[in-house]
């Protein structure tokens, strides 16, 4: 970790000195042990703020959109999911690839703070790397665990921890890509009856407070003006009730259909703990089943499943 942090600081400084990047996006240590929020480095003297640890979860892709109007190039440190998010934005024409410089970091997977809290409590927690795992120390004592025992669920299912399409990649070891069934949870729900599924989603979505955190972290939600921010036509009023919340999520997942990179940020950002990945994965599963194998964000030139067609597509409509 420390070696990667040193490398990042060094590389960011060098690239800014060489003129390859005018600013850098990375992560800095936040106020608490479980927080490593995004940071923008404006000059070489600030590179000491950069860090790399197991809490650099926030997907940085989204920031590039607002930085498009800035002069010069923005350097970005990217994990697998950040890189796919950026490919996504480049594909959508939301950002200009020539205005970003991507430095890849092979990602070991990030920690779910809740899983750590469950093991060692909250408060003063320290996490130290061991040869074959992590040592957690907290108010409830010390525990030795493997990273997978405390990793975010979304990281356990990650198929591309290695960043793709970067200008350079820092030396490091990514976790093993997940090769199993990423749709297991979806299948479980699909097997339920229609009413049970309705009740399941009714219970989950009735909690939604429509803070739009899921939308605002999503690298596939890159509209300049979102339909849900429109007054005329007003597609959805501001009442938070089950029907409106269902409509919001239905439309949002239709909008990101075939474009979702499965970074899991929506679910992480949701303060209400709604399992949004189960909706994203459902759409992804259907795209794959109906229109052939497809993974979004792997290639900035990719053809989007809903932006193209095959005359021989399945047709159940008669």
């Amino acid at each position, binding site marked *: 970790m420390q070696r990667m942090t040193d490398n990042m600081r060094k590389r960011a400084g060098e690239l800014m000195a060489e003129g390859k990047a005018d600013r850098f996006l990375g992560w800095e240590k936040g106020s608490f042990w479980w927080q490593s929020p995004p940071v923008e480095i404006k000059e070489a003297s600030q590179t000491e703020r950069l860090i790399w640890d197991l809490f650099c979860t926030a997907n940085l892709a989204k920031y590039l959109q607002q930085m498009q109007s800035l002069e010069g190039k923005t350097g970005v440190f990217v994990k697998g999911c950040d890189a796919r998010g950026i490919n996504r934005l480049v594909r959508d024409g939301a950002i200009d690839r020539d205005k970003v410089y991507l430095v890849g970091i092979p990602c070991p997977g990030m920690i779910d703070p809740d899983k750590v809290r469950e093991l060692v409590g909250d408060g003063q927690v320290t996490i130290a790397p061991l040869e074959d795992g992590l040592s957690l120390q907290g108010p409830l004592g010390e525990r030795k665990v493997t990273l997978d025992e405390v990793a975010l669920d979304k990281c356990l299912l990650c198929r591309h921890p290695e960043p793709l399409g970067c200008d350079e990649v820092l030396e490091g070891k990514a976790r093993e890509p997940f090769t199993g069934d990423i749709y297991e949870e*979806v299948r479980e*729900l*699909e097997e339920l009856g*229609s*009413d*049970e*599924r*309705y*009740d*399941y*989603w*009714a219970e989950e979505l*009735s909690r939604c407070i429509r803070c739009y955190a899921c939308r605002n972290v999503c690298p596939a939600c890159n509209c300049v003006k979102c*339909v849900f921010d429109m007054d005329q036509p007003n*597609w959805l*009023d501001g*009442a*938070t*009730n*089950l*029907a*409106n919340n*269902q*409509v919001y999520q*239905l*439309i949002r*997942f*239709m909008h990101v*259909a075939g474009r979702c990179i499965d970074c899991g940020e929506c679910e992480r950002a949701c303060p209400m703990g709604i399992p949004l990945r189960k*909706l994203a994965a*459902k*759409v992804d599963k*259907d*795209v794959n089943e*109906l*229109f052939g194998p497809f993974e979004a964000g792997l290639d900035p030139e990719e053809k989007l*499943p*809903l932006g193209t*067609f*095959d*005359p021989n*597509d*399945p*047709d*159940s*409509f*008669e």
Partner: protein
Amino acid sequence: MSSVDADWKPLIVGFCCNWCSYAGADLAGIGRMSYPATIRIIRVPCSGRVNPHFVIRAFQKGADGVLVAGCHPGDCHYSTGNFYTRRRYLLMQRLLEYMGIEPARFQVRWISAAEGAKFAQVVTQMTEEIQALGPNKKLRGGCTCNE
């Protein structure tokens, strides 16, 4: 649905493409074919014009069923519009079903300008299916408050 009023008839919103399905509906009328008066037709230039929002909007505003009807794949007036429609609604149909909305409430059919009888038959069948399900309460806006 025993609690439903015996006179209750479903309200179906039908998005019909101008070139095929709308003409098909016209043909059904000209041919004096009878079908239930449950459908309100909205003419669209192409089934590809139908945004998923429109479908959801219909449910929000009180529809019991929504029909999207367009030219048969390959016959689109704009060559390829309905190929996109097909992909879009194959997905949305499954997503609606996944969230527990009865599949009969949202249907897509290919109806050509020559298929007046098919139009009448589709509306009849859809009406029967929705009649059996009863009024739709899901996704409906306006009158529900969580409190």
